[in-house]
């Protein structure tokens, strides 16, 4: 295995694909390499090419979660979501770009079961244990998106600038389909460079988890109030970060037997999030 340290976005993009993988903080990627879930001949380090730091409403994709959680310029929902993700050690390595692209925590997937998301035909979680799994968009793959910051950014209406285009955060994510099992719309070799995060009048992130701290979200609710209304987004409820217009949207949830509680949990959590931004 070799490590490349390109100095321009073009060089990095050119080096990607064909058995090479982009490396930011490595907190998600390295364990996956070790577990042989990702195989790579070459790691392409992004440190020199992906911007890091906050400028006005723009956040470099290479900014660490630890930097974001203390930055007073950052909207509260994102700051809180970053502060609640992972552990201090991981946050000082992990970048916001990497966080948005982290792989599912579904343990069938992590144990390399030949499931739908791995290209197979069934979802093992639907048939087996799945209390951490999804209540929306879970027909084919029932995984629950693990990122707290992604939900916050989605509620905030963040836009993403990549090495090729600019798109809304909701366009970055897609539900996996028969033909394409990816959960993001990034093309091979496409890099996330920057996020543009509108300033809300108020925002908040609430996270229900299995212990007082240092756990993935069972359900995370981000709410952001803008002049034209409140935007809501949830972590831990669908294979991708999930937007809801209101609490009543929960009536359209399609929970599995073991995830029905997430609907019950999300209801009051949404109410409380709305209460705190309005």
């Amino acid at each position, binding site marked *: 295995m070799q490590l490349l340290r390109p100095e321009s976005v073009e060089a990095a993009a050119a080096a990607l694909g064909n058995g090479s993988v982009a490396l930011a903080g490595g907190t998600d990627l390295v364990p996956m390499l070790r577990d042989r879930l990702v195989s790579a001949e070459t790691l392409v380090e992004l440190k020199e090419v992906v911007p890091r730091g906050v400028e006005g409403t723009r956040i470099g994709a290479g900014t660490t979660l630890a930097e974001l959680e203390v930055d007073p310029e950052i909207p509260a929902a994102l700051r809180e979501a970053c502060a609640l993700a992972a552990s201090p050690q991981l946050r000082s390595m992990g970048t916001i770009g990497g966080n948005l692209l982290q792989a599912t925590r579904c*343990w069938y997937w992590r144990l390399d079961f030949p499931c739908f998301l791995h290209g197979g035909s069934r979802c093992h979680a639907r048939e087996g244990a799945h209390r951490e799994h999804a209540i929306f968009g879970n027909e084919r793959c029932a995984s629950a998106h693990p990122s707290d910051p992604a939900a916050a950014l989605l509620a905030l209406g963040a836009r993403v600038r990549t090495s090729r285009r600019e798109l809304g955060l909701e366009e970055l994510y897609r539900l996996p389909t028969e033909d394409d099992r990816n959960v993001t719309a990034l093309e091979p070799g496409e890099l996330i460079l920057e996020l543009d995060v509108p300033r809300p009048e108020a925002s908040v992130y609430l*996270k229900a988890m299995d*212990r*007082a701290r240092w756990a993935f979200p069972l359900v995370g609710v981000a709410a952001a109030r803008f002049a034209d209304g409140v935007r809501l987004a949830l972590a831990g409820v669908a294979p991708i970060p999930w937007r809801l217009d209101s609490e009543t949207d929960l009536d359209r949830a399609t929970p599995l037997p073991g995830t029905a*509680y997430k609907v*019950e949990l999300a209801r009051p959590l949404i109410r*409380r999030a709305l209460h705190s931004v309005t």
Partner: protein
Amino acid sequence: MSTTARRLELGRVGETTRRVDAIPKVTGEFAYASDLFAAGMLWGHTVRSPHAHARIVEIDISQALAMAGVHGVLTHTDVPGAKTYGLEFADQPVLAIDRVRYFGEPVALVAAEHPEQARRAAERIQVEYEPLEPVVDPERATEQEPLHEENPTAGHGFRDDQRPNVLRSIAIRHGDPDAEGEVSVSGVYELGMQDQAFLGPESGLAVPDGEGGVDIYVATQWLHVDRDQVAPCLGLEKEQVRIHLSGVGGAFGGREDLSMQVHGALLALHTSRPVKMVYSREESFVGHVHRHPAKIWMEHRATKAGRLVNVRAQILLDGGAYASSSAAVTSNAACFAVGPYSVDNALIECTCVYSNNPPCGAMRGFGAVQSCFAHEAQMDKLATALGIDPVELRLLNALAPGDTLPTGQKVSGSFPAAEVIRRAAELPVPEAEELPRDPIRLPGGAGNTTHGQGVKRGVGFAVGFKNVCYSEGFDDACAARVRLWKGADDELVGEVHCAGAEVGQGVTNVILQVARTELGTENVALAPGSTADVESSGSASASRLTWMAAGAVRLACRDALAEFEAGRSAVDVQRTYHHPRTAPLDPETGQVKGDRVHVAYMCAAMRVVVEVDVELGLTRVVWIGTAQDVGKALNPQAVHGQIEGGTAQGLGLALMEEIQTRDGLITNASFTDYLIPTTLDMPPVEAELIEEEEPDAPYGVKGVGEPPTVVSTAAVVSALRDATGSELARVPVRPDELAGL
């Protein structure tokens, strides 16, 4: 420095002494087994089964052997001696022979220059498996194909139970098992599989001695029982295998069984090089046994006034693929099924089955945890049914010296159950903290999920008990050796040898405190534990080591001092201490065949305050108060430490810890997915030590490590029930059980 000042500093029996390993551990200087190093050492790696149940058709090691840096690849054919081993029954292959029975079972070994080379070579070992239907449902195991053709545990004085896959079954019949009461309550309770979750993964270093023997430095709980299992597998005499205690990063029962000992030694002898093995975190989850998951049916019959008339229980334990110490856990679960209550009639049946689930064995609380969760839920239910205060009900039925246990053993010695209950109940429960407060002090913690909305408070209570030391006729004696000589200024100098494993429980301090007390000098050192220079101490388990090591060290010190005072200038004395003898249970009736089946008992009572956000299902344990029967606290601060740690482990089982399996495969083998409580999940613990000396024990001690774990799971869930009104018959109780109540 005056002598008194030094005394205070180092401490005698009964004084708080600072743990000798405390500062090195927090500063990172303590050498754990994973820090071991020897010049020229190789790294060993274990190839493990990816299947829970499969036949091995063929193993091809040729590619791995040819790889750079690889010095040896071994399979079962390379095991020179006994092919199987085990703590109580030698039913577990050193390396799988023609069949694997659990996910992660060792199949082959590699030694290479670098750990990564060893791992890569391991990937090139081709094992052809023919998957077999796994036995994963303990309730069906007794109707499925036997996993061990010849039941390894049959005979051995156990009940003759011909059903397939019965590891041990026991029935305790006491009085008239059909006796009726005026009121009856029943329930079915379940506990998930808990992991010891020690921070130091299994590790050790095996060093060939150049004469055919081997020295093994390892994190373990019982050096001599390791040696007695390792030597036959290596085809060596016991003396040729020397086990030395290395730095142990927690044990909790999970290091009673062998892990890398035989494997490392095989590789070292094969390559004539020192071989180090360190398990990864994921590997550690399959590298040791777990707490038995249990399903327990119980019925309590009582008079209207609240006196227990009859307790009936059926307990099913999943032992997993190999026997480990399951037979003893089975007996414990049965013996403590009623709790520390007096009842004239009982019928307790407990069955432990073999399955293709991860092997289970010893874990802090050893069978009593499971039973306590059930009997305390029942006592609360009974209190509600009778309209009696739950503490009153427990006091009314509290077992006392002179009473008879369901096994027929008469309670003798110290048994302050009623006192423990009273003292725990008297601890003042703190007032609910005013709102608003920092969310970290509300259910949901850092997640900031409530400012008080949905929060209900609950108070719970539980009582439990357990035996100290080994039981059923087993003589788990402990040896200590004391050398005395005259040092500078003619001062007495002592050196103590005791193989008792320091696993973080503080036995080193206890040994030194006893030696200082008995020898009347500060100049005492404890030599490193090794099978090479002292006899067995027995295991660091069953809450026994303080009692047994104190007994042995005191005996050896007194005899050594007598010799020394008689004029010998250098003394070297070894003595073995035995606890009072126990007797087995009758296999048909579960009645003790002698005086006592257990040496002595320890009780604990615990009161817990929780807050539950009943809308979200998130919880916070606010406060824990406990009273524990400790006999005599030799090192009070360490006793408090054991109570806090043991309580945290029980709280973990109550609220979050469970090994998840699918078709026998562990799906959450990491600390990302297997959650244990952090400091934020643990409340302050207020502990009252009840010191009623045990007449048969040195200084009146008992054990302290297990009772807090036995009782805390039950107590936490009792409080959750109070807050929510839900039955909560299964642990762990996680948000999905509580959300939307």
